[in-house]
């Protein structure tokens, strides 16, 4: 077991949720291989919120990235996959790392018009991430994500996997 000690709450999660060591080297995530309830829009009065579920932390992070790409681009099939970027991030805890991860992708979208429908997580622990993203630049985005917030952000165990609800400032 690993102790997930966010600053505001402490709970226990089986160790393998934090691990990418499940018989493959990392996770490749794209829009085409997602179960229906993996990413769901949650009603939020002012902003935009997504509930994301995944079997482990890598799947959760990958699906969160795909969910955000859907918000940015609308139709991910229209996004070219001709730009590859490498990314390495560190944070103090898993929730902080998730904010950093999505925040980086949102920054690319605003600065470069880049949307990344496919992500490959090579390494992922609650405090560090190394990934390759594949995507393309769009002339116009569907949504402007100003920021990824910490509002009520908590990665929780759910039905044999993990769940998180993310609020984006739009």
């Amino acid at each position, binding site marked *: 077991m690993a102790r997930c000690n966010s600053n505001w709450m402490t709970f226990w999660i089986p160790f393998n949720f934090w691990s990418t060591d499940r018989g493959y080297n990392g996770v490749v995530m794209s829009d085409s291989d997602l179960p229906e309830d993996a990413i769901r829009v949650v009603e939020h009065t002012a902003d*935009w919120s997504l509930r994301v579920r995944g079997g482990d932390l890598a799947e959760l992070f990958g699906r969160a990235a795909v969910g955000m790409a859907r918000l940015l681009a609308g139709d991910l099939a229209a996004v070219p996959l001709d730009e590859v970027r490498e990314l390495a991030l560190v944070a103090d805890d898993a929730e902080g790392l998730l*904010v950093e991860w999505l925040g980086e992708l949102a920054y690319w979208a605003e*600065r470069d018009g880049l949307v990344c429908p496919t992500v490959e997580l090579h390494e992922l622990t609650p405090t560090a991430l190394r990934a390759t993203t594949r995507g393309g630049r769009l002339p116009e985005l569907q949504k402007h994500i100003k920021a990824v917030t910490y509002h009520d952000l908590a990665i929780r165990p759910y039905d044999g996997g993990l769940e998180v609800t993310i609020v984006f400032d739009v």
Partner: protein
Amino acid sequence: MNQQDLKRISPYLYEIPREHRHDMRVPARFYADAELLQQALGDKSLDQLVNSATLPGIVAYALAMPDIHQGYGFPIGGVVATETPDGVISPGGVGYDINCGVRLLGTRLTRDEIAPYLDQLATQLQRDCPHGVGRGGEFELSRKEMEEVVREGARWALKRGYATEMDLERTEENGRIAGADPDKISPRAYERARDQLGTLGAGNHFIEVDVVDEVFDETAAAAMGLFPGQIVAQIHCGSRGFGHQVCTDYVARFQKVVHKYNIQLPDRELVCAPLSSPEGQDYLAAMKGAANFAFCNRQLLTHLIRRSFDHALRGKVANPGIYQIYDIAHNMAKIEEHEVNGKRMTVCVHRKGATRAFGPGSPVLPDVYRAIGQPVLVPGSMGTASWVLVGTEGSMAQSFGSTCHGAGRTMSRSRAKKEVQGGELRRELEERGIRVRAGSLAGLAEEAPMAYKDVDRVIEVVHGAGIARKVARLVPVAVVKG
């Protein structure tokens, strides 16, 4: 939160007592009538208001205006004052769009004069004023120039001929907050916003041409040059990616130090640090810089609007004579002096989706408005009325000189998108004589009037509660959506 958790203090004021939750440091109070109360109970906004009442150093009450709705961390419409120097400052209590605000421009024109040319004017405004997701503008700045904007705010635009002295005199803080420090802002913020000065952005930001529909206070209206039938223009936008990045950076930095100051919070987005701490001081200096960027941004959009009116109307009508009425912030933390429990105190007033509304006599107001109180600009939802108000003695006594900032959403963006067709909405508005220019029909649907509260009701509450006074009602004739 249920209705039985609330105590009615006066016809338009409700209180959530401190005993409601063990971690509340002060009671929470909010302004509403019966219908707005039910709407507030419909989302998590009142829980968020209670959360904001737990901030260390908070004084008197955690307050919310009648346009309250669910945000992140603070509710939108929230006002929290913390004592200085050791109370906290919270970047999330200001929000990502630092100094998002509203500017109102007056003209010499009447509705009848420009009616034949409204289509051209709307199209010209859309063409000249960069708007929408990721759109850069014509003012691409070097790092050195951006640092000047951080220090100088709208004065930077004055030096380059994009503003008049009168524009600056009629801007909150004269368009420049002292104490901004360019070195407290990350390289990423400069990079993110290098071509965003003079741009509107997306979401609920807009430029709107309105007509003065009705005047309620002749004296105050005269001081602002407002008269029935007059054409005016509003700008609603903020600090663009510059402010978003400043907030993002400091929310992340504060996460790392909040325990150092032994601060326990119910929501990580409320993260904060003592104002007197190095982190608190750094954020304040960076926030002021982002606020100055926003003042300059609205100033450059003013320049573009003047140019648009000139291009669209030259030779057709008399000189539009565009002049500034006022420019206000509604996402900001300010160090101000207020009376708290009968004692004068210097406090840090966080206004997140709330407008400063200083009463008559305030020394920070320009001479022209000192006798009437600070102009307060309250845009409604697209296609509905907007309001010009003034601050009152009541706002100084009750709400740290604050009042509402808009209509306030009541429906989620996702539901609005499902229930409203952007194209149909545009047709409906056009049929009502409102020209609509929008970058995205889906974005237009999210901002449909049915997704918002009734702004007239919100205004009745702040007027009735005495935390602002009605001056004039505006109705739209052309809208450029971000």
